[in-house]
């Protein structure tokens, strides 16, 4: 691993640790005696300290070391959680963030900030001193880091006939010890047979070693150069893990059965020690020894073995970081398979009956496999929304404090998974919506109490899956939205006429229009009317939508609907002249063949079509796209009623072709700047079909 790779790993890890720390500190403020959180915070600072030292960020190392000391005092019960401590820890995290990720401009008053924070930490710590032993340990580990020392885990198991090749494994172990300091070593004697069965010319011993060394891994590997091909030699750089775990168990990949028995209360520590010592002398499995000595039954051993298996699986199930570009490539290839399948289906339809039937059956089976394959790839990209949501805890805390409000954030459904790209892009929209709730929704404690509510307001951030989509709701228990005021403002700015019959949903949807704000004053956080339209645009860009529901005096709910993936949609294929267009099925309400007398022209609105007592604008797609169509009269064609953002329109097409899964290909802007098109797809016959962006189309029509 080169230095750049190590730095990248550190940056990724630091981001995760810092996000987790911010959430934990806010939780700690609410639960000041929770030892699990306190220990978690301590471990996070400890890991951050160690990792930063390894990559040479000495300032971060030394700074986090001081914060770690502070948390250690809390952990040992010498300090209690209080406001000043929470504030200084949160600000310390900000300082670390700037130091690691910030640009040079952001670091202008960085040194003063650092000095101020260290003074405050010292003040809180009071006269607490570090013990000489601890100081020595700290100095040692600091020196280790500065001298570039690394930790290697070496596992060596040799073939039985290794002596025949003139190799003495003991010499290899001696050579290894010469490259550094052996921190831990375990000789694996399991294969050693009883003395009477012993073959002195065979090799039975193996080793697990942790070595601290200033040598690069290649030097360590070189010790085993002549044996690595035919023997089981595994050498890993475990420096990061060492600093995380403080002590690296030599057999780090094993959870020992004895430990499980002690944890379950079946064995005492002393009994375990006795059994292990006995095991060293006899070639027997630990479980058998425990049963022979009468410390446990066979059933208890078997249960412990099952637990061990589960734990092993947990340890072996490691995560790996995968470049999302590789995943995108996989999805693209899958898309090509889907296209190929469609082509084969068309061919099957043109074949004679029996062969065509057989081919279609085979293709249906293949389609099931492809869908499953697609599901697996999508699931790799899916990550839980929880960590993203957790980040808002700090934001809510700091924002509400700055406004003199008391607000807590409750997170529900954090385990709900969403495509990584979607998660990365919903952060800002969610932040803005939460900001609105804090600024305009939740009242001050005094106003809340006057209204018979608790002084502390609540924002619930909730995620759940439903019917193939992910829903995210921001629910506050604030004062709600005054719909009449929104309507007045909409009329005032010309978005509606006084005699328009507007539904409640339609009125609330005006809040997403650019420049629209009913805020009495512009706050620090919001009220300028430049946020919610951007929110909606961002969400629509993710092929989602957002709606608002509100009850005055009780609160407001903003609900986002997002697709599980951006790459594939279910589409309705429609014919317009010689062209095929795709309408996302999510936007389709219904399709109808209108009657002639159902089409009217309304002044100021254009053509409308009557659908279940409601009049919906009719859009002639051939006109929009400037192409020839077979059907110019709606009653000769098909009208597909689509909906976006509480607005419905009817799209006139020639006919319906079918419905299928579509792999979306992006279109560059030089191909089309029209907002009515969101992308394209390649059909089975090789033709390209444009995908209609219903929201964009409605917007474009509105601007005409």
């Amino acid at each position: 691993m080169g230095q750049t790779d190590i730095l990248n790993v550190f940056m990724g890890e630091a981001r995760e640790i810092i996000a987790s720390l911010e959430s934990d500190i806010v939780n700690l403020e609410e639960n000041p005696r929770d030892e699990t959180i306190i220990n978690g915070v301590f471990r996070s600072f400890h890991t951050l300290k160690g990792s930063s030292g390894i990559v040479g960020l000495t300032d971060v190392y030394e700074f986090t070391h001081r914060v770690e000391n502070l948390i250690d005092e809390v952990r040992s019960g010498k300090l209690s959680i209080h406001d000043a401590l929470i504030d200084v820890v949160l600000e310390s995290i900000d300082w670390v963030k700037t130091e690691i990720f910030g640009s040079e401009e952001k670091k202008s008053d960085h040194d003063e900030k650092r000095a101020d924070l260290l003074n405050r930490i010292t003040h809180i710590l009071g006269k607490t001193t570090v013990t000489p032993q601890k100081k020595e340990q700290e100095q040692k580990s600091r020196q280790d880091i500065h001298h570039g020392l690394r930790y290697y885990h070496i596992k060596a198991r040799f073939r039985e006939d290794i002596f025949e090749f003139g190799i003495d494994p003991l010499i290899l172990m001696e050579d290894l010890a010469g490259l550094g300091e052996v921190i831990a070593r375990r000789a694996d004697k399991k294969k050693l047979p009883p003395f009477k069965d012993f073959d002195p010319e065979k090799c039975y011993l193996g080793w697990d070693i942790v070595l601290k060394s200033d040598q690069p891994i290649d030097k360590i590997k070189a010790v085993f150069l002549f044996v690595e091909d035919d023997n089981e030699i595994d050498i890993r750089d475990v420096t990061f893990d060492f600093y995380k775990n403080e002590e690296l168990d030599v057999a780090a990949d094993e959870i020992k059965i004895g430990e499980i028995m002690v944890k379950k209360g079946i064995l005492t520590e002393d009994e375990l020690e006795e059994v292990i010592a006995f095991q060293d002398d006899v070639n027997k499995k630990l479980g058998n020894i425990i049963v022979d000595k009468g410390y446990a039954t066979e059933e208890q051993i078997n249960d412990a073995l099952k637990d061990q298996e589960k734990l092993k699986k947990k340890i072996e199930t490691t995560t790996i970081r995968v470049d999302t570009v590789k995943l995108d490539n996989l999805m693209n290839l899958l898309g090509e398979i889907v296209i190929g399948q469609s082509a084969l289906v068309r061919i099957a339809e043109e074949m004679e009956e029996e062969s065509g039937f057989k081919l279609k059956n085979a293709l249906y089976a293949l389609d099931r496999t492809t869908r499953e394959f697609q599901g697996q790839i999508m699931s790799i990209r899916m990550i839980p929304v929880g960590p993203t949501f957790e980040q808002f805890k700090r934001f809510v805390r700091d924002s509400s404090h700055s406004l003199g409000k008391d607000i807590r954030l409750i997170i529900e459904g954090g385990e709900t998974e969403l495509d990584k790209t979607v998660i990365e892009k919903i952060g800002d929209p969610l932040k803005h919506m939460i900001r609105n709730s804090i600024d305009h929704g939740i009242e001050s404690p005094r106003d809340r109490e006057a209204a018979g509510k608790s002084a502390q307001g609540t924002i619930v951030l909730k995620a759940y899956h439903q019917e193939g989509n992910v829903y995210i709701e921001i629910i506050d228990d604030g004062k709600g939205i005054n719909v009449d005021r929104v309507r007045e403002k909409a009329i005032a700015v010309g978005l509606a006429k006084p005699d328009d019959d507007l539904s409640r949903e339609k009125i609330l949807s005006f809040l997403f229009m650019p420049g629209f704000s009913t805020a009495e004053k512009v706050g620090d956080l919001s009220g300028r009317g430049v946020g919610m339209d951007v929110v909606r645009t961002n969400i629509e860009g993710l092929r989602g939508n957002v709606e608002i529901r509100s009850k005055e005096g009780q609160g407001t709910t903003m609900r986002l609907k997002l697709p599980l993936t951006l790459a594939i949609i279910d589409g309705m294929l429609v014919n317009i002249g010689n062209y095929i267009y795709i309408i996302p099925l999510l936007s389709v309400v219904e399709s109808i063949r209108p009657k002639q007398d159902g089409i009217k022209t309304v002044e100021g609105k254009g053509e409308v079509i009557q659908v279940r007592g409601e009049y919906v604008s009719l859009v002639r797609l051939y006109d929009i796209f400037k192409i020839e169509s077979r059907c110019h009269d709606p009653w000769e064609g098909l009208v597909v009623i689509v909906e976006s953002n509480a607005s419905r329109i009817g799209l006139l097409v020639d006919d319906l072709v079918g419905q299928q899964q579509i792999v979306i290909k992006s279109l560059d802007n030089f191909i089309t700047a029209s907002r009515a098109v969101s992308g394209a797809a390649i059909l089975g016959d090789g033709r390209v079909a444009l995908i209609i962006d219903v929201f964009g189309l409605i917007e474009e029509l509105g601007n005409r």
Partner: protein
Amino acid sequence: MEIDSDFIGVKQAKKFYDDFAGELDAADEVMIDFSRVKRVDLSIVQVIIAAGREARGSGKMIKLKGVSDTIKKQMHICGLKT
């Protein structure tokens, strides 16, 4: 049991083992004199470990005399407490 060489390894391991086994069968206490031996290889240490287990299991004792620092380190590497 005396070893008359400054190095013993896999080539002498069979004889070492046979002699050791014979001594262990014949007496409750076996003394091996390593005074002349400067170093050993893994095959010899393995014999000592296996013999030690056997001795403990049958209530016998093995003593090593004149073990050099080098051999002590080698045994320590193999997890043998000297």
